[in-house]
């Protein structure tokens, strides 16, 4: 072969090696991109199932007050005064429902017998209220007892719930919840849901005219998405989610590009080496471990919605400031079982509840939701020392071997006095005139142990202008520190805190709690105005 021929051959080999290298690199980039994408899809599916499961968990929050309302209507023969007083806890512009009404069973033409809140829009739906109420009156089987209908039209944006209770009752109760006007609802900043878009539809298909709410303006949801349908009372909810950012984080998303850049810089030999590094045992093992961690993380994120259901706006009461906060603690950790509640029982009494279910994750969140609902109902009928023992019979606590500490502060709105009952829970802090002290009472057993346990209620007079803070141990607990040290830290912080109740709670949360606190905490506060005449 002459010299020129040899040269041509050498060039050919170089080209062959480079093309093989390029082909390898391209294939690897596609494969790893594919892996990342299918992982992403898998995670999306998982998240959508969890959001759906949490929405199902919201059912007791609807069924419990409606069940109580039906019982009340039947027992009192639909007494309007008693019903509207009861409904005040649940109906209002910022409450769970905007309307609650009582209907006489079998006689729907004349409209509702009692209306609390704004008038029901159910009669305006095509076909009128009668067919829906009639169907609802037959639905008394346990798992299907709640009738759910979307009232969705150009002029309506509500969800209607109808509850019939037993077959023998004379009345049905219908309640309506308002949806955001253009269905858009902003994900609270810092929420665990801030990296996904969520759209919730009523029914089994994600049709635009059945949209209840969404957390993004771009519809249909952009990009890869996952859909889950779950039963919801007599109806269904369809949840569609998509990622705002890659769920897995940056590295797996950039892996294909890194591979492409890397491969382009070297020859086929190096490309084979890259192949070994990417798909070899160690790398696959690291990816698998990362996936396991992410799956675990996704699970707990769903439970934070349970805490999103805690009352946002406190009931407005003359002469009293009310404020509360739930703080989930360090991100990436399973959610806890702390909660607070403020239940208006009558014109004279408000019940403040703070509680702490043991454990974390979905077990704690589910038990917390059940306990909270049970207390809302029981408090209407009995005082805390009587209903607290019965809560220990709740199956959801017993089945999981959980216990819960609960503090009940019954506020007498006329007498400026509180009655405190504690089931294993820390005492509340009273702050007045630059001094603070704990209102200690005899502590009964935590809930979940003994249905025969005894509880003692003790009363305290409250001075003018004082503030009372009920809290969970997540506020004061520090690893390696005794409980008493933490209590003293809170007590002295209370003496230096700002006067405005919300500012006080925020300040105390920052001051007292460790910045890397893992535990969640709930704080509920009440402040009495200074009276001008005694």
């Amino acid at each position, binding site marked *: 072969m002459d010299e020129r021929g040899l040269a041509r051959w050498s060039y050919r080999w170089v080209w062959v090696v480079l093309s093989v290298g390029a082909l390898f690199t391209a294939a690897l980039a596609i494969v790893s991109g594919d892996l990342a994408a299918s992982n992403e899809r898998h995670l999306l599916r998982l998240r959508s199932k969890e959001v759906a499961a949490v929405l199902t968990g919201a059912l007791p929050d609807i069924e419990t007050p409606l069940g109580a309302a039906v019982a009340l209507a039947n027992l009192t023969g639909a007494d309007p005064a008693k019903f509207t007083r009861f409904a005040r806890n649940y109906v209002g512009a910022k409450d769970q429902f905007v309307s609650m009404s009582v209907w006489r069973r079998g006689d729907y033409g004349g409209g509702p017998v009692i209306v609390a809140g704004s008038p029901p829009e159910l009669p305006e739906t095509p076909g009128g209220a009668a067919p829906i109420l009639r169907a609802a009156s037959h639905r008394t089987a346990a798992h299907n007892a709640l009738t759910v209908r979307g009232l969705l039209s150009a002029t309506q944006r509500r969800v209607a719930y109808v509850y019939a209770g037993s077959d023998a009752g004379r009345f049905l109760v219908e309640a309506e919840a308002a949806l955001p006007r253009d269905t858009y609802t902003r994900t609270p900043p810092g929420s665990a849901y801030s990296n996904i878009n969520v759209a919730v539809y009523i029914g089994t298909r994600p049709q635009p005219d059945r949209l209840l709410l969404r957390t993004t303006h771009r519809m249909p949801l952009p990009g890869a998405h996952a859909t889950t349908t779950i039963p919801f009372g007599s109806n269904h909810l369809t949840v569609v989610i998509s990622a705002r950012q890659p769920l897995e984080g940056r590295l797996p998303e950039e892996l294909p590009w890194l591979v492409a850049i890397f491969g382009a810089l070297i020859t086929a030999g190096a490309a084979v080496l890259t192949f070994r590094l990417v798909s070899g045992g160690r790398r696959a093992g690291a990816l698998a471990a990362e996936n396991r961690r992410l799956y675990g993380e996704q699970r707990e994120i769903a439970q934070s919605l349970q805490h999103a259901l805690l009352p946002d706006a406190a009931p407005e009461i003359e002469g009293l400031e009310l404020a509360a906060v739930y703080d989930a603690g360090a991100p990436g950790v399973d959610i806890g079982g702390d909660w607070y509640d403020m239940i208006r029982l009558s014109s004279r009494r408000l019940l403040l509840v703070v509680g702490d279910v*043991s*454990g*974390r994750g979905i077990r704690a969140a589910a038990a917390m939701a059940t306990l909270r609902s049970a207390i809302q109902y029981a408090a209407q009928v009995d005082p805390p020392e009587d209903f607290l023992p019965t809560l220990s019979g709740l199956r959801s606590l017993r089945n999981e071997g959980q216990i819960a500490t609960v503090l009940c502060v019954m506020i007498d709105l006329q007498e400026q006095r509180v009655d405190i009952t504690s*089931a294993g829970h820390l005492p509340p802090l009273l702050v007045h005139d630059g001094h603070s002290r704990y209102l200690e009472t005899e*502590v009964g057993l*935590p809930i979940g142990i003994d249905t025969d346990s005894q509880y003692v209620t003790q009363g305290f007079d409250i001075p003018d202008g004082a503030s009372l803070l009920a809290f969970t*141990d997540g506020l004061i607990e520090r690893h390696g*520190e005794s409980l*008493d040290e933490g209590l003293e830290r809170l007590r002295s912080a209370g003496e230096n805190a700002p006067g405005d109740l919300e500012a006080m709670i925020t300040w105390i949360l920052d001051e007292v709690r460790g910045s890397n606190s893992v535990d969640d905490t709930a704080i509920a506060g009440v402040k009495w105005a200074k009276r001008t005449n005694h």
Partner: protein
Amino acid sequence: MGEADEPLTRHHVTDLGGGSFQIALEGELDLSTADAVRDAVENTINSVTETLVLELSGLRFADSSAIALWVTWSQRVPRVEIRHAQPMILRVIQTMGLSGRLNPR
């Protein structure tokens, strides 16, 4: 054996005779380890017909999950006695009104 390999919670069961058993707990008992301990001593709990003694001198940390676990044991055996618990753990038991249930000594 490096520190990474040592379990966070160690437990040791002793048959005290007459239907009583002792479980000695060492290290730290919290949410992450409570389930494992619970499963590991399940048979022992089932065998107690008199007293379950919890020897806690080696337990330097216990949170509400640990206490909830001891409480569930107290519902399944005639009597639970806690011995030599650190003052911090004792204080939490007292604050939660559980002294009568867990009988710390």
